[in-house]
């Protein structure tokens, strides 16, 4: 008995239910539309998934620590606008257009982290407040105008558009990020401490973990990843309507929750979030193919979030002694 339990646990380590869901969703999608499996469409799915996925990875780490980062949508926008305003036309400005947004994302993450872990503010409301502040600040900065750059260097637009074996670069980067974050969360002291803080903040403090430092770092990571995602958007399309692209936090949160990260912290894996991101990207893609527009997609996402939360919370009630 003990060995079978062990084997099952070993299996569960690598394959969690969300990967099964992903396989199922892909099969269903292939039946619904034969366009779905076309190489061009697959690349589109991956490309869309990756932009939200990078945001979701950061939010996963924050949520494993027991907190929420809902300011990410605004950080994505801020980074995209910054990159375009800098106007990456030569190597020096390309570097600037990458470094400056990343540093700003890190800075905002640090503010979020200190507000949440040092001042003990409720993270949901505080980061929604931050989201509002950033939206206002960026819109004020560009007077509510569209932002575009006319002489984007090939080097910058290549960030998101260049392909290797037919697959865009960000997809590779995303895979690397998932692997690195999985190792960080599973194999390093930092990761272990994040799980500890999410499981029991007070116990972790008593065990000598630097809660404020570690917790703030999770927000810094989340801010930087959101900024990275914004840089990709800037590179991908070359122009941004700042009042229209704020909606990344919600699908990312949906993916994080769908991937099984516990809302009360202490449980979750970056790789499962990646699977969930793909599930959502596939669903959205099929809906687009079937000509269901944004409102329906939004509705479906809300239902998926509620359903996922309900599923996991009911399962947890069952598992509890």
């Amino acid at each position, binding site marked *: 008995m003990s060995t079978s339990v062990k084997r099952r646990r070993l299996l569960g380590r690598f394959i969690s239910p969300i990967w099964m869901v992903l396989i199922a969703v892909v099969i269903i999608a292939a039946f619904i539309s034969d366009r779905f499996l076309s190489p061009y469409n697959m690349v589109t799915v991956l490309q869309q998934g990756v932009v939200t996925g990078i945001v979701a990875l950061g939010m996963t780490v924050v949520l494993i620590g027991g907190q929420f980062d809902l300011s990410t949508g605004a950080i994505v926008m801020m980074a995209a606008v910054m990159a375009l305003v800098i106007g990456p036309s030569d190597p020096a400005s390309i570097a600037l257009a990458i470094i400056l947004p990343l540093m700003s994302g890190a800075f905002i993450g640090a503010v979020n982290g200190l507000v949440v872990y040092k001042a003990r503010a409720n993270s949901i409301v505080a980061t929604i407040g931050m989201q509002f502040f950033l939206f206002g600040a960026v819109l004020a900065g560009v007077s509510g105008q569209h932002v575009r750059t006319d002489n984007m260097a090939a080097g910058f637009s290549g960030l998101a558009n260049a392909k290797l074996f037919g697959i865009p670069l960000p997809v590779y980067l995303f895979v690397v990020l998932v692997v690195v974050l999985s190792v960080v969360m599973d194999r390093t002291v930092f990761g272990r401490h994040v799980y500890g803080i999410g499981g*029991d903040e007070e116990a*972790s403090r008593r065990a*000598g973990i630097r809660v404020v430092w570690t917790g703030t770092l999770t927000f810094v990571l989340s801010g930087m990843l959101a900024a990275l995602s914004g840089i990709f958007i800037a590179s991908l399309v070359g122009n941004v309507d700042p009042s229209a692209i704020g909606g990344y936090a919600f699908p990312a949160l949906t993916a994080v929750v769908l991937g099984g990260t516990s809302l009360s912290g202490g449980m979750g894996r970056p790789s499962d979030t990646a699977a969930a991101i793909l599930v959502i990207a596939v669903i959205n893609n099929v809906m687009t193919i079937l000509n269901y527009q944004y409102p329906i997609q939004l509705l479906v996402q809300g239902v998926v979030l509620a359903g996922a939360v309900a599923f996991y919370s009911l399962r947890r009630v069952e598992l509890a002694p």
Partner: protein
Amino acid sequence: MADVPFIQLTGITKHFGGVHALKGVDLSVAAGEVVALVGHNGAGKSVLVQILSGVFPPTAGEIRVNGQMTTFGSPVDARHHGIETIYQTLALADNLDAPANFFLGRELKTTLGFLDKKRMAREAAKALIELNPNLVDVERPVRQMSGGQRQAVAIARAIHFDVRLLIMDEPTAALGPHETAQVAELIKRLRAQGIGILLISHDVRDVMQLADRIVVLKGGQIVGSVVPSESSEDEVVDMIIRGRRLPAGRAE
């Protein structure tokens, strides 16, 4: 007692807003001494424990370790002095397994700087099985463990590292008679190794057997201190309830 006690508290006071949890407590524990702290619910025992282990600072008062004045800014500071604590609430992260809790905050690392999970699992299992042979499978979240098993994890963690003073806040509260006897054995063994022990308990009978000295706390004040061989269970219970000071000559 010629040499200085390992730890000495003088005039420790703690206020939580309007609540005066401790009002000028003096207490000392020497190496190899078992001091029992008894008192009613809400007497202030756990607050004293948390001050001693650096969870929060006292409002006023002095802490001396080996005669040296110190302040504990955090639990890490207390640990550096060899003060380990088993909290009444156990302070385990429910989502982590026993080895992870065991090494929480002082993880073992490989040469590359990654977590050395194998070594941590091995060491934790060894320490745990020594303490509680019924703990077969340690690699599951402590949430799924019984109260006694969780307690074993907390105790094993506290004594595994270089400990000079072990503080136990009701360590036997969740344990059956057999495990309670094991903890008693453990206390005797640690005492023989020269480790000081501050034992908080509601079980006066137990305490009479184990302690070198019993200190009674009531309403945030020490109302008396007795040596078990010179006192009786009834007298201690009386002190806990009435807070009556001992007649002169019998107090230490």
